[in-house]
């Protein structure tokens, strides 16, 4: 007997409309789907609504129209805590750690919704990310930019998520640190976590992804296999500067 696969996407976004005030629509109509085991990159110019899309999926912002489904169950409009407990972990672009708390305490807060087995999970994270283990008793604000991003992702992994939402993880990092970060993202994905990543660094983002979405002005502009998008001359000219 073959393995029965669920035909539904793990995460699907349909006709999403949202903004920070009632009159201001940043997302005008967005579609997105994420299959189990996949990395999807969302790229586009500044102000396209990429970060807003992740915030709506994570429950920080309520959509005014449209829907977000996780394994076919609607999750839009739920509180961040509930969405996190359902297995969707969001890593914000900035201010994604608790600066005065230690690395270890940050990880504990990462697993706040489900403290069971948190000690074992933290030990596993320390084994996997030795730089974090070395700094376990240091305040998070003392970490380098790259270490801080790793900590932020590790905090998200504390809830053993099915879906990881990353908002511009490489922003502000030196090229070497960014490269290491993309390696980490790929490794997390290989452990079975599906990832939607928003990036300015479009080439790198498409290189680690199976599929890509290009957003312009609050709408989907193009989507397709990441390798095809990365090769497409139009896409390269507009977004990749080449």
């Amino acid at each position, binding site marked *: 007997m073959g393995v029965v696969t669920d035909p539904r996407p793990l995460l699907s976004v349909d006709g999403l409309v949202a903004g920070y005030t009632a009159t201001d629509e940043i997302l005008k109509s967005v579609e997105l789907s994420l299959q189990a085991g996949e990395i999807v990159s969302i790229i586009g110019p500044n102000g396209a609504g990429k970060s807003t899309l992740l915030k709506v999926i*994570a429950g*920080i912002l309520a959509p005014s129209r449209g829907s977000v489904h996780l394994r076919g169950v609607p999750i839009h409009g739920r509180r*961040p*805590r509930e969405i*996190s*407990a359902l297995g969707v972990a*969001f890593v*914000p672009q900035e*201010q*994604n*750690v*608790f*600066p*005065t*708390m230690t690395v270890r*305490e940050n990880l*504990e*807060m*990462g697993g*706040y*919704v489900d*403290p069971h087995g948190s000690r074992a999970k933290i030990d596993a994270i320390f084994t996997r990310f030795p730089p974090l283990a070395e700094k376990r008793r240091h305040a998070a604000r003392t970490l380098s930019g790259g270490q801080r991003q790793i900590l932020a992702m590790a*905090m998200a992994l504390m809830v053993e998520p099915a879906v990881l939402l990353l908002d511009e993880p490489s922003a502000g990092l030196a090229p070497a640190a960014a490269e290491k970060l993309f390696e980490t993202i790929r490794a997390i994905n290989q452990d079975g976590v599906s990832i939607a990543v928003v990036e300015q660094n479009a080439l790198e983002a498409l290189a680690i992804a199976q599929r890509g979405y290009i957003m312009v002005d609050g709408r989907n502009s193009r989507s397709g296999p990441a390798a095809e998008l990365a090769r497409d001359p139009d896409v390269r000219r507009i977004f990749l500067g080449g």
Partner: protein
Amino acid sequence: MAELLQLLVNGLMAGTVLAVPAIGFTAIYAVLRFPNFALASHATIGAFGGYVANTAGGLPAWAAVAVAFAVAGLVGVLSDTFVLRPLRPAGAITTAIAAVALNIALENVVRFVFGNDHRGYDLPLQRDWQVAAIRIGPQQFQNLVIALIAMAAIFLFLALTRTGKAMRAVADNPTLANVKGVDADRVGRLVSFVGMGLAGVGGMLLGLDTSIDPLTGFRVILSVFAAAVVGGLGSIPGAVVGALTIGVAEELSLVALAPAYRSAVGFVAILLVLTLRPRGILGERAY
């Protein structure tokens, strides 16, 4: 020289007692992001709660302090839930002004119930201790110990418990705390309880040294605010450092100034810190 040393010891003891409500003030600021000046009336309410437990209930002073904590904490949660919380979306200034109004109202409730008279706790008469040239009152010393226990308890709570860490997380980064599933309303109620409870303990400790009346808290709020600002608003270790600084400075001011001008120390300290180092001694290190 002996006189200076005596003032220094008095200042450190006064500063330690002052640190208790100052921690309450700064903790509330760290989580709820507004200066809750209603802390003054909560200190008074705690002092009177402890007074009733001590004189009518027959509890010794150290046990009545727990009653002071509970009563002031409970009033703190209720007043925050029904008066201040609905105003918080309007901004920190609006909420702070409402807190001043709330303070006047609560102070007058105390006046209505207990009158304007000064009242004293039921305390055993004890002779002062003489250590070399320094005089220390046993009650002063007991207050010092109670204040240290209260501070140690709050530090352990913040460092070791899940709830204490959640409170620090909200103070550090409220948006992220929300993403991670911390219930900000619950943390807000908790910080109101603990912060105002500490104010109540502070009010009672001050009253144990002298007497209490409806203005007990009002007389000390400037020093509490100054301690929090000097240490860095929102920083708990800062509140301790600030309170010791203000306590010692107020006592040492007696060398040069008449006691009536003692409160000028708080004003001067606030002015100096806001001019020279606006983030306070320890900045915004929440914990």
